[in-house]
């Protein structure tokens, strides 16, 4: 019985040890891509609720998705911790007029996923309206069986 339990646990977790693989189009990666898109959508929805409610709703979901050591670089090059990012969202500095993401690509490396995309949300930040699309990079890492956002960076798209 004990052996069977250990074997089951091993079967669940050994695949996680196979890391650092090059990205490919295997079924396993297709499944991971689905999971990441789902969690990224959940993050965005939780963030909208959190902003709209000044931190009353959506906090537990964001807390689950944001890794404790999250590094967040905003479109002004500001580097925020998880606590600072949550405070920024809660403070009322940011408001969403609309929310959107119109393209993305994912690279899977075992338990790490690098996602790049283009966000088309219209936002008001510290009283200034920003309708310019932004390019973002999200880095997700699977920790204790759950995908968590460890890094985000965004850059306003502009003519060189």
């Amino acid at each position, binding site marked *: 019985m*004990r*052996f069977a339990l*250990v*074997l089951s*646990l*091993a079967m*669940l*977790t*050994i*695949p*996680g*040890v196979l*890391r*650092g*693989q*090059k*990205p490919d189009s295997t079924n396993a990666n297709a499944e991971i891509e689905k999971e990441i898109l789902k969690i990224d959508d959940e993050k965005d929805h939780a963030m909208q609720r959190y902003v709209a409610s000044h931190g009353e709703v959506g906090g537990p979901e964001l807390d689950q998705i944001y890794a404790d*050591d999250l*590094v967040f*670089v*905003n*479109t*002004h*090059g*500001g*580097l925020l911790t998880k606590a600072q990012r949550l405070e920024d969202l809660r403070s009322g500095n940011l408001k969403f007029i609309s929310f959107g993401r119109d393209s993305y*690509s994912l*690279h899977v*490396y*075992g*338990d*790490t996923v*690098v996602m*790049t995309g283009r966000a088309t949300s219209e936002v008001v*930040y*510290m009283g*200034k309206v920003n309708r310019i*699309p*932004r*390019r973002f*990079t999200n*880095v997700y*890492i*699977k*920790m*204790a*069986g759950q995908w968590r956002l*460890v*890094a985000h*960076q*965004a*850059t*306003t*798209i*502009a*003519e*060189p």
Partner: protein
Amino acid sequence: MRRFLSTVLLAVSLAGLIKAQELTGDKAEQVKKDILKIEKERAQALEKGDIAVLDRILADDYVYVNVFGELHSKVQRFSTIRSGVSKHESLQEDDFRVHVYGDTVVMTGRASGLVNYRGKVNDKARRFTNVYIKQDGQWQLVAHHATTMAEP
């Protein structure tokens, strides 16, 4: 024998469960040193336009987001360097924060210096995020994202 096998399986399993947490301690410090060494090589190679060194450091599926929000592949990045469209006249990096998660490293930093891009010189400081992955025993840069630092 069965007990031994159970112990081995359990040890491997637990390693699998905890591996993605941020690493600390001597091993993490060594990884940080290795990454900062590679980062220095990368900066020097960018100043010299040394494609051979960059080819070794950048993964084949490298994704690059520049301060204008343009998304380039490794091939596109090398094309802009070879053609002179993108030229780092000088490059300094500092304010590094390095997070180690097993075979993944996420680092942020600040870059300054002169960059000539499409005929325009940019001397503004940039914040960047780099993602390194260990593949076949070698750390390679899989993503670089830069944003100009400015007042909101």
